[in-house]
């Protein structure tokens, strides 16, 4: 598919455009927000500043340590996005490699790799993530690793299926007869051809990764020195914001997570429709 054709297809898809514009806004906030709005989670307010409702000074009120919720929200966007995207890269790297090698090499390799994938598919991911996070300790790199390592199995399955169709194509046969090595074929022929699918899948997995990060942080496994939206939700819940009806504390991060995940999901579906011939509308 040619590039401008792809863009044309994408622009025709309203869902995708809405998702994409939402995502652009979030990325802009995450990139430039923290430069404009200075937020230091280590600067606390006074006793009178604790859990104040929204005002001119604090647009979204203050939290349980007298800090500005709006600024925390801006700072948290960066953490949530970075963790989500970085974890997705790990997932995609493992999932794509396993999928391609499994599909291309076939035989015993395929069997072993797919059984491992099955194990990861049926493993209850939330308890697994919780156990891993508790074992490794709650710093941001461990969180990324934990989410990445638990989220690749679906991708591996999809990529393997696509690889299976690709490898039967004639030009692969031809390459082989010219003496191309397996790695050469995988890198130059298989990978570029499964890439659109991987790309669409990446977007969807990112949505899951962001949700996973929020879940882990909400359950108190997050990195408290780099507060994400999930961490904010955790502290809001634990400090009784719900029973004190401090809606300004728990609503904004919740809504932001929802919108960000929605943005990725909409885009993911749109891309899936374009790159997946079975779903494409003619």
């Amino acid at each position: 598919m040619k590039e401008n054709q792809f863009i044309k297809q994408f622009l025709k898809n309203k869902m995708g455009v809405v998702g994409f514009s939402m995502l652009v806004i979030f990325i802009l906030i995450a990139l430039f927000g923290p430069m404009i709005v200075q937020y230091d989670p280590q600067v606390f307010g006074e006793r009178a500043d604790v859990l104040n409702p929204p005002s001119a000074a604090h647009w979204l009120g203050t939290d349980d340590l007298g800090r500005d919720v709006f600024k925390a929200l801006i700072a948290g966007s960066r953490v949530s996005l970075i963790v989500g995207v970085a974890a997705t890269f790990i997932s995609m790297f493992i999932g794509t490699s396993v999928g391609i090698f499994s599909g291309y090499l076939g035989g015993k390799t395929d069997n072993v790799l797919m059984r491992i994938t099955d194990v990861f598919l049926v493993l209850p991911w939330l308890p697994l993530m919780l156990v891993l996070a508790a074992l490794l300790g709650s710093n941001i790199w461990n969180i990324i690793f934990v989410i990445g390592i638990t989220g690749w199995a679906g991708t591996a399955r999809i990529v393997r299926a696509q690889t299976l169709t690709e490898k039967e194509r004639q030009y692969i046969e031809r390459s082989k007869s010219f003496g191309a090595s397996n790695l050469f074929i995988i890198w130059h022929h298989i990978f570029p051809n499964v890439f659109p699918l991987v790309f669409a899948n990446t977007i969807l997995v990112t949505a899951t990764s962001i949700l996973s990060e929020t879940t882990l942080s909400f359950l108190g496994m997050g990195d408290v020195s780099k507060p994400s939206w999930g961490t904010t939700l955790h502290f809001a819940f634990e400090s009784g914001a719900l029973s004190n009806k401090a809606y300004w504390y728990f609503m904004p991060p919740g809504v932001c997570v929802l919108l960000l995940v929605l943005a990725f999901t909409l885009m993911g579906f749109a891309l899936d429709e374009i790159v997946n011939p079975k779903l494409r509308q003619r």
Partner: protein
Amino acid sequence: MKKKISIMLVTILVLMSAMPLMSFGAAQDETILKIGVKQEPDSLNPFVSWEMASFEIFMLTYDSLVKFDRNYEVVPSLATSWELSDDQLTWTFHLRDDVKWHDGEPFTSADVKYTYEAFQESEMGMYYTSLGGITAIETPDDYTVVISTDSPKANMLQNVTPILPAHIWQDQPLDSIADFEDTAMVGTGPFKFVSWDMNQQVVLDRNPDYFGQPANVDHLIYVIYANNDTMVQAIQNGEIDVALELDYVDIKSALSNENITDYAYEENGFTELAFNQSEWSGNFNQLIQNKMIRQAISYAIDKQKIVDLVYDGSSTIGSTYIPPSQGEWHYAVEGDKLRGYDPEKAISLLESEGFTSVDADGYRSNDSGDKLSFLLLSRSDNTSEVKVGQMVQSYLKAVGIELNIETVDDGVLYDRTMGEKDYDMFIWGWGGDIDPTVLLNVLTTDNIDNLNDIFYSNPEYDAIVEAQTHEMDRAKRVEMVHEAQALLYEELPYDILYYAENHQLVRNDLITGLTPTVSGAVFFANTIVNYADATFITEAAESSMNSSAPAENTADSTPAESESESDGGGSSGLVIAIVVIVVIGGGFFIWQRNKSKKANENQKNEW
């Protein structure tokens, strides 16, 4: 396929909703006192356990020779009277002759002898330290115990070691006693142990044959809550009658409820910033063992602001080791010896220790390149302590000390402090007894590998703590306890951050008869008087109000179901949760497989 899963899910959901009602569903005229707690017992083996929740259960299921009343005066329990010889070295206890163990066996002096000797020989658990100095235990007859000590033992009557049934425990070899589980928990106390469902509840039944004042309530359930907010909601909705271990910030929303009485008290204990004092293993930053750096850390922290923000000003800032709630035992530091919030003093201390070079992030190091960078462990299930950790981090940053925080759960924290020792500081707390010895003993060399969680060892301190247990003149003993605290305050193995104010909420429309102890607490107060006195207001009112919640549940499920549930016991909630996840995961797997199969078939068709 899909349908099957959904039916299974529905069944599981129904079962789950029936979970909270125990076998009592059938007997609704019986009274159940439901107490919400945050802490799970760590173990129900008195040789192993050291948490407050377990201590409370031991007080209810077992008895000690003497106990405390509401005013913390020593009153008879298993012993009716006692004498001290003129040389102050021999104690004679006369025991009750009408006490039966929960299994019907008679209680005799042999049980006392077995228990004390077993604790002494195993050198384990929280009770071991209160038996120090005892050299011999003789039993001239079934109801007399003669205890000899090598020197006078000042805290003999403050020793509340639970007496265990020798006929059950004595066959256990002492070196593996930690692994022994007396699943029936046979004791002599006013309550009998029924069950402990991990993360859910501990159930006790009234012992009608109790030799003292039997309880008014028929059953006692500790409902374990992971979240303060949920517990406060639960008492407001009448799901529990009492809620314990709450901070002021948690209960604010409940204070306007006229059916809830709030008992506030300053806890007999403290929350400390503990510093790793163990032998250097390469796993931590040895700079933390420099006393001047620890003092600088102490100066750098604004404890008042921590108390203001985290506890809404409702706790007392910390200073010395024995909390002010222990009255005259508390040592009040005066004058310029008191370390207030003084970041400049902290910086000058660090600079005089050679930490003069400051890097781009503002963190200090000395000429040999040792950086002031430490790792703090904090308990993930205690949000207040996590917040305190964040504040400490920011105060230390201000004076050039880097602090990394890891939040871990209690079990991991215990393993890392007692095992790997790969940390520099942690935040945790201790609760004390009525006698200061148990708290003082925590940091003695003798308690390394038992209670001493930072491996602190100071012969001078050991000597004072030992000496005060032999001092029978109270005024002199108070003096020595103060001396021990002054030493700890200077050496700073623990920086006492605050003495928390705690709150206990009681539904005053359901429960009556409770009177706070001198400490201000009703439950978890070193005495069980309020468990005996707690009474439901009237049978009629009780059954209409208190059992309304379980009654609704019963309607949804048949008695057979609820019975099988209670028999299941254990951690059935977790099991069911895992089953649900496995079912969903399995369903997803099968669906996924079908899908890929179909995809494969499609491909085949294409070819």
